[in-house]
């Protein structure tokens, strides 16, 4: 049959036959392999999840990160300490300031420097603003993943208030690069504190709105309740952190439980947990965390102590030889920096522990046996950021 065809047609014919054969093999075999990603609207980035499907049911699923690996740990080794913060801002790009703090704390620990009281309080305020910017976008995005198109626009609208605050104080909307070893780059601008207290009201209004519009809604609850249940023991085994483990009922928050120089201990707030461990619990816990975060910022702004914002540090920063590990409770979970110094201008080795990498590793366990629409629900509620997985 192919003898009378022109060349291009022959090639197309052979390709079509091969495609048919492929389809037939897959139909005869047990189930069908579906690549969700690396280019797919639900993975907001380049995560690839290989699913074996039986009908619409997932037989097994395997997350394959690495499509956005940027080699930050290696890049940090050839930079000096002030330059490193610029890089690590880009790990979790939605709550950038939170990435800087644990690294700076690790370096300060090695140098034996302690930032002044006021700097620690302002660090905490920015840390919480970063958390709000991050989680507000999560609350909108989870709606998009479930098919509601409106919440994400409200989220972008109200996240802007928080980003404006960060920008007006640091000059960077997304990547403040504001934290320095020994303190902060600048003091706060005039009137910033009042504006921040006013803005927290808007953040709380957003929480109420999103609860009315989406999280309290019947369809949202039907889609998320009982979907992707992670019991506390399994969550602990897989090393989940952050809101993911608190929504499985584990009452553990480094802001309260770790001995940190930051100012959370001066504010009155609650650690939110939920006993269910399903997708709804994860969304609900994050919603409440935004509210608690707004509470923390308001209290810290009102009680901010006066004083210097920078400790005495040499102009050229050299960290003495040694090792230190500092972790903090970031928007996505526990983030830690293991810093090894040999006394040079930059880190000798920097190991970054990012929360999303561990949080997504449970996917192959939790996705087993669910349906394709629930894959999206579970991934959305586990909440990962690709930069945070691959760094």
């Amino acid at each position, binding site marked *: 049959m192919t003898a009378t065809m022109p060349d291009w047609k022959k090639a197309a014919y052979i390709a079509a036959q091969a495609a048919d054969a492929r*389809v037939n093999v897959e139909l005869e075999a047990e189930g069908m392999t579906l690549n969700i990603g690396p280019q797919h609207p639900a993975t907001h980035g380049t995560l690839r999840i290989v699913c074996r499907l039986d009908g619409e049911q997932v037989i097994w699923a395997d997350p394959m990160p690495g499509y956005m690996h940027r080699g930050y740990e290696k890049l940090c080794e050839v930079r000096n300490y002030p330059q490193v913060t610029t890089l690590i801002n880009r790990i979790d790009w939605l709550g950038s300031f939170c990435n800087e703090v644990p690294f700076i704390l690790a370096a300060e620990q090695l140098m034996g420097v302690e930032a002044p009281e006021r700097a620690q309080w302002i660090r905490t305020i920015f840390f919480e603003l970063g958390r709000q910017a991050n989680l507000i976008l999560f609350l909108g995005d989870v709606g998009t993943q*479930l*098919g*509601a198109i*409106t919440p994400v626009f409200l989220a972008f609208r109200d996240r802007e208030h928080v980003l404006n605050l960060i920008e007006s104080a640091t000059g960077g909307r997304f990547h403040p690069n504001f934290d320095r070893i020994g303190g902060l780059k600048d003091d706060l601008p005039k009137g910033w504190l009042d504006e921040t207290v006013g803005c927290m009201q808007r953040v709380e209004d957003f929480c109420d709105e999103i609860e009315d519009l989406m999280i309290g*809604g019947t369809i949202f609850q039907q889609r998320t309740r009982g979907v992707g249940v992670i019991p506390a023991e399994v969550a602990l085994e897989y090393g989940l952190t952050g809101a993911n483990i608190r929504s499985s009922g584990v009452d553990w928050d480094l802001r309260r439980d770790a001995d940190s120089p930051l100012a959370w201990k001066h504010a009155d707030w609650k650690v939110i947990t939920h006993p269910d461990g399903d997708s709804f619990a994860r969304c609900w816990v994050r919603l409440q965390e935004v509210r608690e975060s707004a509470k923390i910022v308001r209290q810290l702004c009102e009680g901010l102590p006066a004083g210097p914002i920078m400790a005495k540090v040499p102009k050229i920063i050299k960290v003495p030889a040694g090792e230190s590990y500092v972790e903090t409770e970031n928007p996505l979970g526990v983030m830690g920096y293991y810093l090894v110094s040999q006394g040079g201008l930059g880190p000798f080795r920097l190991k970054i522990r990012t929360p999303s990498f561990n949080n997504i590793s449970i996917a192959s366990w939790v996705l087993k046996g669910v349906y394709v629409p629930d*894959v999206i629900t579970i991934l959305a509620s586990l909440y990962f950021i690709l930069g945070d997985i691959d760094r």
Partner: protein
Amino acid sequence: MIEAGLFGLEFAYWTSTTIKVLAALVVVPSGALLFGYVFLFKVMSGMQSRIGPNEAGPFGTMQLLADGAKFLQKEDIFPDGADRKVFAFAPIVVLMSTFLLFIVIPPAKNLQVADFDTGIFLALAVSSLSTIGVMMAGWASANKYSLIGALRAAGQLIAYELPLVLAVVGVVIQAGTMSMPGIIDAQRDFELFGVGVGGVPFVVPQFLGFVIFLISAQAELNQAPFDMPVAESELVAGFMTEYTGFRFLTFFLAETASMVAFAAIAATLFLGGWYVPGVDQLHGVMLGVVGVAVLLTKTMFVGFLMFWVRFSNPRLREDQLQRFAWIGLIPLSLLNIVLTGVFKVVL
């Protein structure tokens, strides 16, 4: 079949056919443009606290035309391994069913493409033709997302065709006819408990039917919260994933124009169509213009309800929407028929 005239004027067969074809070619795309502009752009952006398109033309009115021109410039891609003939033909099947939907809708008195005795059921029957096109598109694309989307669309059609038809049965019992102009006349003459000079629209006695019809139409049209077949966060674009350029535009046009058609059908069945008290005092072209304007207003109202639901809800999962149809809507619509029958006999 009764040959309906245009404003009661007499035309030769070929003249009237040409006029009808031209009218259809104008009405379907311009209806789609109207819905697309008003709801997809302006109402949606208003609900989402953003501005929406405002650069192309006055208030962004030309945006859809600009988008259409953009689609025409796109490369026409056939996926490797696609069944080329079926792939190319599928959007036309979908669009054809949309055109057929408009046949039986009367925009004014004596203004209709064709008046069938079983008009409303013809509309419901041709609306399910589009699913054949969707299945063709999904199968011929040689894409797993397309296939899953097409199968979901077929399952959804079977589930929601039933409550749609059963909701219409209530209206048919109430009106005593299946012809669309007949249903409008029945609403003009209808009196509820002796009240109602100039008629009562069927939305009052058939409110349950109206709600069921709107929900099922939403599902027929694959709109949120029933948009599992095109769920963009999981299936990319469902059966349309592999389509580009003009073929994608055809799907989009068919989808939006079908919404116009279903909104117009709902307006005709439940809100009295082109009729408001006093409009039948008018004659000739004036009657046509006012009738079209009245129907358009009612259609826009129904369209607003549909898009309102679409913009504010997450989507249901496949099993949930099946359960909703089989144990929620279908028993309710059967109950609606029983109640309608009882009232019809008693009153």
